[in-house]
């Protein structure tokens, strides 16, 4: 295929695509190109006709398709209405929740539960335990010393209480 033939074909294709001044000018003086345009144009028209015929459907098909579209549009409209109805309620709910949360100073972290201790009761239990427990043997002399110390103090205090009376005598 030489360049000349190529340029003829290009011009025919340009003419088939749409109006092209150079192509139209060439075709006006070139009979083979005119024929070629007619031939290809006819084939494309046949192609268009065949395609349209193929896509043709019986009337019942279009009826059913339209019915399905109608049902689909109704469904989507209902869904959209439902959304519009629920949206204000959800918005109010959200605002109330937000207001409640913002009123609190803040969410405090959960503190571990502390055991409640009654200090008086604890002390009482300790005293009882100490009273009931025998004094260890190693501590006995000390205990005696304390007891002796206590008895001396008592005797001194008794004597000192009698002295003023002797002076009186």
């Amino acid at each position: 295929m030489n360049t000349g033939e190529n340029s003829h074909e290009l011009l025919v294709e340009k003419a088939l695509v749409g109006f092209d001044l150079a192509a139209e000018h060439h075709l006006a003086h070139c009979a083979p190109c005119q024929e070629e345009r007619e031939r290809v144009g006819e084939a494309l028209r046949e192609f268009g006709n065949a395609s349209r015929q193929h896509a043709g459907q019986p009337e019942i098909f279009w009826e059913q398709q339209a019915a399905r579209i109608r049902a689909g549009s109704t469904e989507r409209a209902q869904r959209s209405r439902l959304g519009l109805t629920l949206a204000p309620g959800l918005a109010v709910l959200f605002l109330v929740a937000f207001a409640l949360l913002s009123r609190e100073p803040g969410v405090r972290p959960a503190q571990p539960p502390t055991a409640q201790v009654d200090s008086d009761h604890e002390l009482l239990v300790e005293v009882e335990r100490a009273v009931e427990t025998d004094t260890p043997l190693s501590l006995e002399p000390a205990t005696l010393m304390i007891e002796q110390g206590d008895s001396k103090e008592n005797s001194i205090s008794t004597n000192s209480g009698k002295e003023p009376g002797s002076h009186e005598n």
Partner: protein
Amino acid sequence: METALTPALGATAHNLTAEEFDAIVRRHQRRVHRFLLMMVRDAEEADNLTQECFLRAYQNMSSFRAESSLETWLMQIAANLIRDQARNRKVGFWRRLLGLRDGEGEEWAEHVAAPEASPEQSLLAREEVRAVWGVAEQLSRQQRAVFLLRFVEDMELHEIAAVLGLQVGSVKTHLFRALQTVRGRLRDQR
């Protein structure tokens, strides 16, 4: 490409009644379905996409501006659906793998030629259409869309540009390349 409903639609797009929408469906469903069928070459898929096209139109009717005709707007939605569908390559992959498209060109070619045509003429026409379909299937999605909108839907270049969101110059380029491919392949087959 004005339609009877287009002028009224501009004012009442927000308050479209079910009857008005139904009238729009009935007026445009054939063309939308045909374009989708030719692009996807699957009757069930084309039916589903046609429904989706009109449902999307219904949902977004408020966004319709009367700058383009209603039909062009619907075809734009259809073209977008095809593009979205093309992104989902899985279906196409399995379809090709299972060879489900084999023989479709022959089925289409059966519709060619008027009943009054001679057997020879019918045969010739069927052969040519089958060959064109065979080649058209191999075009890129964009080229095929331009080719079909031009030669099956008889759309003007500026209408095709509006539907596919292209410049008129790009439409010309796509169409020119598609024609070159179709003619070249047909020549090789002869």
